[in-house]
């Protein structure tokens, strides 16, 4: 009964949205929704605003659930739908559990794109636009092993939330790169993409094992920041490190020689291209049947938003690297992935 009433209410509010298939861009009002508060997604805000301005949209706004809980994200999505938002770029709070809400939203005519993380197929998402996390972790591990040079190659891997499906992909990718290069992953510390557990566990690990590790790879934002600070405090430890993302602390540590490099992701490109694609889908475009999608463990409709390795020589110009990835993606996006006849 409750579901029935809910459906009627939603239908009343969005009947017009559901009834139209090709709408003007200036009616487009999109929500860019991360899984919860996290600095990685902040670039979505500027990206949405830039894309809304460039393509003459009503709005493309970054809205953050208060916590990393699927229920909070679902409530936010339903609330935005009821406020008139008519397209969504979503980082699924859970690749499987989030599908039902996505179906509900999609049922009212609002196109959905998965951003930064994917839904598990089948889902109503047009496609998943995110970092190929496994490849990024693999390339980062390769860069780390190269930086370690000859001799022993013992790697500690600090990574993110275990509930994030990307985490296992990253663990597997780092292990694969290590195996190929004759290195050893001596420890994986996960579930530390929050400042306090990261601080406590990374420092505890380094306090006890600094002499038994030659390199650190971090594949989540907060562990990268905390590990960079820990290496700075330790001074000349001889430990090499490759981080992830573009936090100021990590970039400064690269410039100062404390950290060797970082694997950039492209959240700005996800927000900008995601908004562009939502508008196209809402304007009547459809996804090509033969679009050259990639695939990962969750979906066969994956588009890599790009990754790049930044070291001391390019730390000052990392924004250019991100823009270049966005331009590369956008250049032939419509031609490759959409039918807009």
């Amino acid at each position, binding site marked *: 009964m409750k579901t029935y009433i809910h459906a009627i209410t939603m239908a009343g509010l969005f009947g017009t949205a559901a009834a139209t298939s090709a709408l003007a861009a200036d009616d487009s009002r999109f929500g860019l929704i991360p899984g919860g508060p*996290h600095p990685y997604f902040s670039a979505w805000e500027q990206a949405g605003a830039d894309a809304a301005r460039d393509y003459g949209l009503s709005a493309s706004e970054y809205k*953050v659930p*208060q916590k990393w809980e699927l229920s909070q994200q679902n409530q936010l999505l339903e609330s935005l739908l009821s406020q008139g938002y008519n397209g969504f770029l979503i980082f699924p709070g859970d690749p499987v559990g989030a599908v039902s809400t996505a179906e509900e939203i999609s049922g009212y005519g609002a196109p959905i794109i998965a951003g930064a993380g994917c839904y598990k197929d089948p889902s109503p998402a047009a496609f998943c636009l995110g970092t190929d996390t496994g490849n990024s972790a693999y390339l980062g591990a390769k860069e780390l092993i190269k930086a370690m040079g000859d001799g022993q190659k013992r790697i500690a891997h600090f990574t993110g939330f*275990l509930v994030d499906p990307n985490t296992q992909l990253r663990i597997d990718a780092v292990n694969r790169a290590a195996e190929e290069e004759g290195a050893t992953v001596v*420890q994986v510390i996960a*579930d530390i993409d929050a400042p306090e557990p990261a*601080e406590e566990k990374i420092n*505890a690990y380094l*306090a006890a094992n600094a002499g038994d590790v030659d390199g650190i790879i971090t594949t989540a934002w907060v562990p990268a920041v905390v590990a960079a*600070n820990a290496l700075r405090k330790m001074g000349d430890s001889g430990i090499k490190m490759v981080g992830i993302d573009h936090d100021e602390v990590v970039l400064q540590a690269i410039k100062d020689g404390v950290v060797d490099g970082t694997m950039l992701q492209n959240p700005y490109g996800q927000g900008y291209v995601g908004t562009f694609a939502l508008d196209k889908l809402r304007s009547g475009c459809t996804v090509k049947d033969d679009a050259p999608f990639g695939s990962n463990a969750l979906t066969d409709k994956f588009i890599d938003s790009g990754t790049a390795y930044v070291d001391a020589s390019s730390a000052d110009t990392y924004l250019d690297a991100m823009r270049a990835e966005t331009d590369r993606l956008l250049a032939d996006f419509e031609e490759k992935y959409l039918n807009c006849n």
Partner: protein
Amino acid sequence: MTQISRLSRTDWFGPLLATIIAIVVIRAFSANFLSSFNIQILLLAIAVNALVAYSQMIIIAIGQMNLSVGAIGGLAAISFVGMIEVWGIPAPLAVILALAIGVGCGVINGVLIRITGISAFVITLATLSIFKGINLGITEAQPFYGVPDSVKAFGSALVFGPIPWLVVPTVLVAVGLWFMLSRMPVGRFILAVGSNEHAAGLSGISVGATVIIAHGISGLLAAIAGVLVVARLQIGQPSIGDDWLILSFAAPVIGGAILAGGHVSVSATFLGVVIVAIITQALVLFNIDPFLVQVVLGALILAAVGLNKLRARAPIGQGT
């Protein structure tokens, strides 16, 4: 023998025994466990976590619970750095204002609980959302990086040997809390209200004022913890406080606190924090599979609580 029997019935005996056993066992397997650097890392974690636990303990003492401890600490933390970065306020003044925010949040909790008569669980669940929402509204989920060098230096400086300066505020708070609960009228009022609110009221104690004071103290302690976390992390992360809830209950309970109120122990709660910190570090040192860490942590905390309950064969009358 009688002396040992009496000791075994104190709140702190069980946690102390568990702490000693844990240290001996872990030291046997990891030579670096008692290294100077590792002790420093442990003390840094304990310094903050003890304040978090005390923030909850004072509410448990009145027979209530405060789900917004982490949200208050997080709000105070980002307010502290935000005021420095955005408004250029000097760090000492920003500390005072951040602590005032903590007290204010706690007082709001207490007043709402007394005015509405709704349980503290519901009120603090609601204010948790409000305080966290304000946090996100201010930060937009972005960290503040403008932590002054003086604060960073305080966060990493050592008093002597491996003892960090961050433990000093915690020690002062612990001594102050012990003195308040065992020697001062307000402390006795708090325990009396927790033991039997009705009887306390009939005895002339202002129950409303006591509840509000307890929540004010809880907010203050959470805010101090938030400021210390900023000094330790050297960054104003909006997610500060998100992980505090379980610890805030685990440590007082390991320390023998009665959730119905009226009985808490400052020293045993401190030892509860030490046990959780040691267990957390042991899981890292022993390279436990990351997918099993939460299971093992929960089981070990349960074991620590069980050990303490086993020795508690006789009721003990008051806070220590």
